[in-house]
């Protein structure tokens, strides 16, 4: 090995730079978590989860209505996205390369890359304009559209992971394709698909842009689907923009709730996929 010292030094240097890059990415993660926890934890109390916002100038109050709003809007989105996502995912895998299957796959990839604000515009034009009113339904529709490609691609990937022998076994026993899918293949892939859906839910729960002009915002308790509805992210946004110390405090608390939600979902998904991987290796 006749490596001259300069080349070895360069190699050493570049390896060092790569390690540095990892730190450069980890520092922001650490900083963001640090600030969100430090600024938010003090304001996370019972009131935050149960009260509604106070009028400007008064301290106290909470984001209870916005939290309920986020739950309602995300549920609407999930109701809309899960059937379309799962069934089109099944079609993409089971149709075995028809034109429609390829088109659906392409559409899912395209939709996944569409900026969330553009999806908000779409929901505005399709739902808000005809009804002439901002509504929770419009927000749910927007989030649903964002969620569809996530669900469709997870379903597709996980169905492909199911060993072909399982499907062939079912078919050999005389099952129809539909029966093979719904009683054998889909149940085998289900834990993974549910994990994917949970991750997708966590992602849409953190979206703000598509809600700005669909579900708009609402400072009061509301469960009326055809009325504007508050959401945690939108509330954080409007508080962050305002020049009011007490609102900034609550914005951080809202951010802490969002980050905790994301962290829990990611960790759960991580654990679930690890179990799945072991199961598949075990086979």
């Amino acid at each position, binding site marked *: 090995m006749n490596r001259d010292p300069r080349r070895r030094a360069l190699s050493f240097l570049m390896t060092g730079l790569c390690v540095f890059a990892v730190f450069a*990415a980890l520092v922001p993660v650490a900083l963001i978590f640090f600030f969100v926890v430090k600024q938010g934890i003090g304001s996370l109390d019972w009131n935050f989860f149960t009260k509604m916002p106070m009028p400007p100038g008064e301290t106290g109050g909470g984001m209870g209505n916005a939290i309920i709003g986020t739950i309602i809007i995300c549920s609407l989105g999930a109701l809309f996205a899960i*059937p*379309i996502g799962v069934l089109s995912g099944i079609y993409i895998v089971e149709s075995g390369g028809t034109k429609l299957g390829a088109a659906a796959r392409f559409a899912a990839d395209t939709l996944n*890359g569409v900026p969330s604000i553009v999806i908000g515009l*779409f929901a505005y034009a399709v739902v808000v304009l005809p009804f002439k009113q901002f509504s929770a339904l419009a927000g749910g529709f927007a989030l649903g559209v964002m969620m569809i490609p996530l669900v469709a691609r997870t379903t597709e990937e996980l169905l492909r992971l199911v060993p072909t022998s399982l499907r062939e076994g079912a078919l050999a026993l005389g099952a*129809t394709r539909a029966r093979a899918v719904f009683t054998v293949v889909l149940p085998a892939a289900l834990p993974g698909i549910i994990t994917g859906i949970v991750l997708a839910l966590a*992602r849409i729960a953190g979206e703000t842009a598509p809600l700005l*002009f669909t579900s708009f915002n609402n400072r009061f308790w509301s469960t009326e689907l055809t009325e504007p509805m508050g959401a945690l992210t939108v509330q954080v946004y409007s508080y962050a923009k305002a020049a009011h110390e007490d609102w900034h405090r609550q914005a951080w608390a809202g*951010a802490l709730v969002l980050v905790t939600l994301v962290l829990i979902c*990611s960790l759960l998904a991580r654990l679930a996929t690890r179990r799945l991987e072991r199961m598949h290796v075990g086979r």
Partner: protein
Amino acid sequence: MANSQSGDRSFFFTTGFFAAALVVIVAAIAYTLAEHSVESISKFGLKFWETSTWDPVMGEFGAFPFIWGTLYSSILALVIATPVALGIAIFLSELCPDWLRTPLTFLTELLAAIPSIVYGLWGIFVLVPLVRDIQMAMPEWMAALPMFSGPPVGVSMLAASLVLAIMVIPFTSSVAREVLRAVPASQREGAYALGSTRWEATLAALYYARTGIMGAVMLGFGRAIGETMAVTMVIGNRAVASWSLFEPQYTMAAVIANEFAEAADDLHLSALLEVGLVLFIITFLINLASRLLIWQMTRQRRPRATPTPAPSAPGVPA
């Protein structure tokens, strides 16, 4: 598909219906945006993208500062993010000990899961004051350069591209890592056999994976261009096209986020929808290019990599 049992026909009909719905939604997005932009397009034509006066009250709309701000902030973000993202990808795929790989991957990918609004909040209260301090601390001769001119307010192009860079890193690095993993071990082994250092072997792998890496960078670009909340909160929202890093500017996504809910007249709405339409088209093209590049890389190279796993199978990540 050859199965003719009636249960299967309805199965394919039902699932096919939902697959078609997915296609229809994407087509509907493009159509709806185009339909609602017609008023603005027919009134301003190409002038819309060349002029810089954005005055909803007078009904004058020129979107040049927005497309400038979007492209400038995204390109700056890429310049910052790409070396870091590649460094992470190289570390995770070539250098990292096995026990460290999973937790590190998890942590870097956590960056992608943090909601945009949280980045924005952090940007406003932590990063923006920092940027302001940096600008204030700059020696006078530097502050006089056109690149660094502007009021010391903190909300600026620099703050926006820094936040964008952090947000884009996980996307670029995870695709780059996948692509590097698709490089056959023989490439690195060949380089080592010729007496390469570790870095030179990595370079060989990078060169082999160049198409896919381009794809990874493009994917990050697409993400940066469409990012809304975090940028809106830190860029300053002034419709001015400037080279200066400290000048408050504006982006396409930000102007939609700020003005759409309050836009009163049809022309204003239509102008904002045209901005949205162009945003849709740009991200569509960039993502398409990105997917083609990644697909080329993983499609052509994988089959060549798999037929010879035997000698080095244990220990080599599949």
